[in-house]
């Protein structure tokens, strides 16, 4: 039994100003995920390609016999593409329940009865997902660049490929924003996180399958516009200055990515509300 009275008391402390709510939402969502051992395992696994690449850099800088393994700009492009499966699984693991679980538990009316806007709510949820996705894309890619500089003992590679830092940053952001907003939009459409995960897998895998079939039948890569992943890859090739893999103009591919993000934001605007009005 507590030794002090447990009655209700008026609060005389200090309240923080507005605008921090998104940070509270994001940090709580991240802490919740980090307590999950399976998810921690997935995060560690997502760093395995980084270790392999780091060994490759080490070998190429220390053993002339394997100098052919020396990294190029294309190495970083390939590295980020290798992270795609991890982006896919982390997006599903973290994102599927972010809004759908709140819908299931009618939590939106609790959130939005507090001093926070709908934008802050979505920003908090998005920030949690974006942080984890950057942790498996942008962070290891930049670290790999740093490892290369440290092991080579010179800035020659970096000076020769100065565009790599902005390229890694821009591509990672595109990759992460597309995955995050698509997932959040889907998550806002359902009360079941499993259904959301299935929908996301459907959007990503089904569109890629359609694109593959179209290519097999017509040998035309114009259908890459159907697949968000293919469109992102096309943009990525241009950003990393490697030959584009499809004939589609990169501008159009970027437009597809942009439209997907914009469409997702419109869905969120419509679905994230304190009350569901059926009129």
């Amino acid at each position, binding site marked *: 039994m507590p030794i002090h009275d447990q009655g209700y008391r008026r609060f005389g402390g200090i*309240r923080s100003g507005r605008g921090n709510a998104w940070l509270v939402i994001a940090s709580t969502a991240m802490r919740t995920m980090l307590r999950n051992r399976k998810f921690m395992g997935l995060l560690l696994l997502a760093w395995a390609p980084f270790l392999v690449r780091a060994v490759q850099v080490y070998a190429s800088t220390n053993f002339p016999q394997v100098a052919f393994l020396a990294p190029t700009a294309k190495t970083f492009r390939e590295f980020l593409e290798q992270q795609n499966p991890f982006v896919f699984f982390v997006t599903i693991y973290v994102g599927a329940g972010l809004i759908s679980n709140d819908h*299931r*538990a009618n*939590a939106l009316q609790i*959130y*939005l*009865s507090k*001093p926070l806007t709908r934008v802050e709510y979505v920003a908090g949820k998005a920030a949690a997902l974006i942080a984890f996705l950057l942790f498996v894309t942008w962070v290891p890619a930049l670290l790999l660049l740093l490892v290369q500089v440290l092991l080579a003992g010179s800035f020659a590679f970096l000076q020769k490929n100065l565009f790599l830092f902005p390229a890694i940053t821009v591509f990672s952001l595109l990759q992460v924003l597309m995955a995050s907003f698509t997932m959040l939009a889907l998550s806002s459409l359902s009360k079941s996180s499993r259904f959301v995960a299935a929908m996301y897998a459907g959007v990503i895998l089904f569109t890629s399958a359609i694109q593959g079939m179209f290519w097999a039948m017509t040998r035309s890569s114009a259908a890459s516009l159907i697949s968000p992943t293919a469109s992102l890859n096309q943009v990525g090739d241009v950003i990393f200055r490697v030959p584009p893999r499809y004939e589609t103009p990169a501008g159009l591919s970027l437009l597809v990515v942009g439209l997907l993000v914009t469409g997702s934001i419109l869905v969120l605007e419509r679905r994230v509300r*304190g009350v569901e009005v059926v009129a």
Partner: protein
Amino acid sequence: MAETAARPYEAPVPAPIASDGVVVRLANVSVRYASNFALRDVVATFETGAVGLLGPNGAGKSTMIKTLLGFIKPDQGQMTVLGLDVAASPLEIRARIGYMPENDSHIPGMNAVSFVAYCGELSGLGSVDAIQRAHEVLYYVGLGEARYRNVETYSTGMKQRIKLAQALVHDPDLLFLDEPTNGMDPKGRDEMLELIRDLAHNKGVNLILSSHLLPDVEYTCDRVVVMDKGRIAAQGPIAELKGPRGSVYELRAKIDTDRLVGALRAAGMDCHATDEDVMRVFVPEGLTARAVFEVAARERIQLRHLRPSVPTLEDVFARAVGEE
């Protein structure tokens, strides 16, 4: 059992309110879902203290609360909460109010302490203050022993209490309680009403209690706003609305009660049926029970029972919404 006694060294602090003593004001507010009006030209004021928002299901009570919270934009009209314009300062208002929703609501995957502390942080409390307040409030609402359990494992009654706790954690000046006793067993309901009464009368928290349960409102509130079909049917202090505008009798007739009701109404005496075969007759000022006997005699209907009664909130409600 909830702690209800005020601490001797801690006087209830009156909540800061608008200078005119009005916490909520609605001026010609209309809300429409497609072509159906949920609120129609509502003009109402909610003064300090505990105010009941009473009305049958579908009267527009929840819509009014959700409109005041900014969840629904009104088609017309102006609203102020704690002296602030709802359209212009929704976040400032939400920082000073607490909302206990009608339906089952929680943040999934959290225990009670984490949930309530999280709500405190969202309302602007620091993390240390939020966790301390969460423990205090959970004890206050009677969930002290269950505060480390996942909210999703709670019973209906416990979920009602946790909803109250999350609405209270940041110490609001005004509480919106939407059907707070829904689904609770009689003991839990009594405890919840005791908490609400304590908050309003001993802790200086203004509250608006939306309910279709007359006894709940009558027990906890000093004033009432009665709604029906999206309009305000009556508003004012309960004592005044129940007040001496005549007398009330319980009446039972042998046969042909419909004819008696018609005759009584024609004679200017309102009456309505209750759960049993007893009807309640409102005799206007200046008349007595004799007038009832005269009507019955004229209609040749035998009265089996006539007993003076006291006006209740149910009478106010029945008169306001014209229920028979």
